[in-house]
């Protein structure tokens, strides 16, 4: 700051000095530092958690996308190669016996025979596909 002989400038210099001192007079509270740094740490750990959750979400999504065709193929293969259970065999045998007016034992063995043939056909086709 320049000192001046002019009384008006002197007043102005005094005013500036007074305001400057008043600026140094006010200070932040003691807890401001602690709370600010704590809030900063909380913010950073929240961000880290968010980032991890986001990455996990993406990981699950990518895994699901990769597994979907595999699961679909597995499902279709399982439904193709599935052997009917006893209730289904019984129902099919009953239907056959009613259609052909024959006893249930014959129909049951016929149904079993048909299932075996279907299975054999399925395995034959898949083997042919693989060899080709």
């Amino acid at each position, binding site marked *: 700051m320049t000192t001046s002989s002019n009384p008006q400038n002197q007043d102005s210099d005094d005013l500036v000095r007074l*305001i*400057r001192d*008043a*600026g140094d007079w*006010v200070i932040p*509270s003691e807890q*401001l530092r602690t709370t600010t*740094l704590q809030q900063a*740490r909380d913010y950073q750990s929240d961000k880290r958690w968010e980032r991890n959750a986001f990455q996990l979400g993406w990981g699950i999504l990518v895994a699901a996308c990769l597994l979907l065709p595999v699961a679909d193929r597995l499902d279709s293969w399982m439904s193709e190669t599935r052997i009917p259970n006893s209730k289904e065999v019984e129902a099919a045998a009953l239907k056959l016996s009613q259609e052909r007016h024959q006893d249930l034992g014959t129909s049951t063995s016929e149904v079993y025979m048909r299932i075996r043939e279907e299975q054999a056909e399925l395995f034959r086709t898949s083997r042919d596909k693989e060899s080709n």
Partner: protein
Amino acid sequence: MAVTTDLSERVRQCAEHIAEHGAAALAGLYDLTAERLTRLAVAITRNQHDAEDAVQATLIKVLANNAALLHSKTPWPYLLRMVRNEALVILRKRKKWSILDGLSDLLTRRNVDTLEQEESMKAVWTALRRLPTDQCEVVVLKIWEDMTFAEIGSTLGIPATTAASRYRYATLKLEQMLRSHDYEEVK
């Protein structure tokens, strides 16, 4: 000018530390700037609690996006602008009736030698609080931050000539207010 440049360089160094070490390095920036930022925010909000909220919000924002501060050409004025914006947001949100009349919210240094000096500090702060915000912030940046009118202009987004005229009006008003304060005291 030199003060601003030197502070800008130190603020940039702090921003680099924050980019490298995260929240742990924020203490450096806090220790360097908190007092200055707080007094600017107090001058704008006219309340110490609100001012500290503004400073805290600003420093958390620096942590969240320190690239802006790091790549700023003038990091110190940029930081001042950030705290000013936060303070103005708080000022706009605050109800008019909640503005305190006295200086009871202020936290002050205890090394003031005499009662007379403390009285003059109080008189200056009371006078500053009576100034319009746009004039008060120019006084703060000019006198407390040693900025040129061009720097003040770029910090506040106004022409340098406007900053200069606001400063002139403000100092005239302050002079009048402080004179009348002295007069009342003598009486």
